[in-house]
């Protein structure tokens, strides 16, 4: 893996922020885009733009083919059986809203949806909406170092939830869940299993067929692709049974004034003109990741994580949150006596972009007894020099705030 060469593919990384070369360490929030993806989107608008599944003319056929190719590429990327199982949404949040709405139709009063306390709000709030129907939402507890409490999980599964929705990896702490085990435990309890894979698929390989998981959701923009494109994978037989989420154009096969009939999969769940350019750009992002190799990327991140963690442990007054092992290239931390926003602002002056706050995971923050953290997250284009600048930045924070 040639990082120098990879970095050259990302035009934004040449940008200067406050006079310094950008060091982008907020990859858990969104990733930067390689020139190949940017060009693919441009190329589509310059050469192939037409609405999909509409006109019987050449240009529409071109855009339809390109858009459908993107579904096929996604199916291959996660090893789904076929493209019928790949629904494009706006993002992970929309994918989970689709599930909550559509699966929620069949749930009854007092049925239980089980999720966990390390979730992003996107895998909590949509389920809470089902409370209006008298459905209960329960949460698996977390340990002090941010892992799922296994005893509590077993106990909560013994109450036979209808749905078990959990994250593949924590966006705050980087905790990587044992998805294989969790899916099996969910299945054994007869629950539908859903993985919020928004922080998972860009770092770890996934094979939905082998995993036998029912649904997974993730976002293009966190894996080098454009914003406004998300994925919902679902088993074909389940998707067939489910009612549509949004309705209107393109998702129908026949409409009369009295009744409508749904289109075939996956289009039944893609109402209206979709984000065609986004889908096409996403396909190129997936190809880019496959060319480099997810396992290679993961190895590279782990190297940076280990290096930066070790360096940080040398500095007094730094608290790092999360597990020691099995974590993504994410460092969630606090500098004693300094608010996370101030840490982020000092680093920003040197062109280093990190996130601060509660990271859309307020229940987890409450559980950890903190208001927020500063968070650095690595991806394939980050270098050891980036990690060094980040460490230097933290030392600068301590100097400015005179904390020792």
């Amino acid at each position, binding site marked *: 893996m040639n990082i120098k060469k990879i970095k050259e593919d990302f035009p934004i990384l040449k940008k200067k922020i406050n006079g310094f070369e950008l060091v982008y360490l907020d990859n858990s929030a969104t990733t930067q885009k390689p020139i190949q993806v940017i060009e693919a989107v441009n190329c589509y608008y310059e050469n192939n733009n037409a609405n999909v599944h509409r006109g019987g003319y050449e240009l529409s056929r071109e855009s339809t083919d390109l858009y459908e190719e993107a579904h096929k590429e996604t199916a291959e990327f996660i090893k789904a059986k076929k493209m019928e199982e790949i629904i494009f949404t706006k993002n992970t949040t929309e994918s989970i809203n689709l599930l909550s709405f559509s699966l929620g139709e069949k749930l009854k009063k007092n049925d239980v949806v089980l999720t966990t306390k390390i979730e992003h709000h996107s895998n909590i709030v949509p389920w809470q909406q089902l409370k209006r129907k008298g459905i209960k939402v329960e949460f698996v507890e977390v340990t002090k170092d941010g892992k799922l409490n296994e005893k509590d999980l077993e106990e909560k599964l013994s109450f036979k939830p209808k749905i078990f929705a959990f994250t593949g990896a924590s966006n705050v702490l980087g905790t990587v869940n044992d998805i294989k085990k969790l899916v099996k435990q969910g299945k054994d309890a007869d629950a539908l299993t859903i993985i919020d894979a928004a922080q998972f698929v860009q770092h770890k390989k996934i094979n939905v067929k082998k995993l036998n998981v029912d649904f997974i959701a993730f976002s293009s923009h966190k894996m080098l692709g454009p914003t406004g494109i998300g994925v919902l994978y679902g088993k074909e037989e389940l998707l067939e049974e489910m009612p549509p989420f949004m309705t209107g154009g393109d998702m129908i096969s026949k409409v009369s004034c009295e009744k409508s009939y749904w289109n075939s999969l996956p289009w039944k769940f893609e109402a209206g003109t979709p984000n065609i350019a986004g889908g096409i750009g996403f396909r190129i992002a997936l190809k880019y990741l496959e060319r480099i190799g997810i396992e290679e990327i993961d190895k590279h991140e782990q190297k940076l994580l280990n290096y930066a963690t070790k360096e940080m442990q040398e500095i007094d007054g730094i608290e790092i949150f999360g597990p020691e092992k099995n974590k993504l290239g994410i460092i969630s931390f606090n500098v004693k006596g*300094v*608010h*996370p*926003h*101030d840490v982020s*602002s*000092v680093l*920003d*002056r040197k062109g280093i972009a990190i996130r601060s*706050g*509660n990271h859309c995971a*307020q229940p987890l*923050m409450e559980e950890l007894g903190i*208001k*927020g953290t500063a968070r650095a997250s690595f991806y394939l284009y980050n270098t050891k020099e980036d990690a060094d600048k980040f460490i230097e930045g933290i030392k600068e924070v301590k100097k*400015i*705030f*005179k904390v020792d």
Partner: protein
Amino acid sequence: MNEIYSELILDLYKNPLNYGELKNFNIKAEGGNPSCGDLVIFTIKIENNKVKDIKFKGHGCAISTASSSLLTEKVLGKTIKEIKKISDKELNEMLGGIIQTRIKCMTLGKRVLDKAIEEYKKSGKNKIKVTIRI
């Protein structure tokens, strides 16, 4: 001297003026921004339509803490009308200038205070407790 935070901000963050809570108050206002986690609580004693005494507490970043603290100094002895007139620009100048990305942190306390005073006037009561979400 660094270029990000004025010495005043750093001083007020470490040793905020008027930090604490008044036992005898007319207004108690708790406000914050759930998405950033900052929280500020003002307790205010009003006499003859003027701020007789004011304290603040809570938790926040350097800028929001310093700003709320300085605000308590600034509004002491002022009428409700006068407090309303304090502009963001004025606040920024008083603090020695803050970076553009953090304007929201600076104005958090002021927004809570403005809203609290408004509620107090509207209520017509002698004592109110309000929670304000910014």
